């Protein structure tokens, strides 16, 4: 009578994010309020990405705008952040922007040569490698806080990370 728990990870902890950046060889720029992206701004030549705005409704609203209004709105948002991340060799940067629910969005421009190094470093548009390393750092941090012992950490052939925990108090 077992159950499986899954967690869709949300970035909330800057210390864990700093650890994730260190693990991937990225530079966390605490307090940097802007991040570099395409110098001419949003051109409306690709879809408005999921997760850029706080809600799906706001994303849908922006997608439904006229082209001129959408370009204006997108350029109000893009390039602004609360913290940034630099990827060695990349012209552009990654922005972390705080949300009302206490989490951070991870935004960067993967279009063209300026963002290609970021796309490679993060493993895709949704930054899976960064999210995975963040989850690993945050999970270990919280596990220790709850008195669990981390017995082992194994990097698997399929790219996953397997942690073995000995439960303590909770």
């Amino acid at each position: 009578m077992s159950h499986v728990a899954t967690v869709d990870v949300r970035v909330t902890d800057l210390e864990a994010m700093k650890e994730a950046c260190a693990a991937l060889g990225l530079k966390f720029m605490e307090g940097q309020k802007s991040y570099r992206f395409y110098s001419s701004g949003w051109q409306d030549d690709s879809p408005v990405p999921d997760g850029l705005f706080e809600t799906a409704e706001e994303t849908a609203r922006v997608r439904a705008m006229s082209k001129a209004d959408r370009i204006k709105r997108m350029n109000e948002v893009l390039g602004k952040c609360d913290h940034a991340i630099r990827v060695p060799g990349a012209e552009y940067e990654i922005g972390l922007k705080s949300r009302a629910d206490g989490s951070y969005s991870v935004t960067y421009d993967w279009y063209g040569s300026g963002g290609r190094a970021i796309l490679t470093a993060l493993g895709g548009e949704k930054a899976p490698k960064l999210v995975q390393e963040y989850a690993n750092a945050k999970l270990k941090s919280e596990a220790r806080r709850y008195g669990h012992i981390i017995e082992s950490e194994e990097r698997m052939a399929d790219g996953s990370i397997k942690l073995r925990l000995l439960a303590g108090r909770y």
Partner: protein
Amino acid sequence: MHEVIIDSAGQIRTVYSDALAPTLAKLGAVSIARASMVEPGAGGWLADLAAVRGPVLGPFALRAEALAAEVKWLLDAGTPIPTGGK
């Protein structure tokens, strides 16, 4: 001992345990889905893992043996996410 897997997309999965629940809740939105059924059947206790596209294990003389077998199968199979789960 508990195994937690963080897949290459950054999603976490583990066989549910009360001991880990508060830790997991700090990571994000947690979803929990049934992975198996342990019921008495012909000849003893059976562990049905159809929810994770797995076999029916058993029969076992003791319910505890069936429970242990299903957990071992889940771990050996890499903790598959139940059909219909996230």
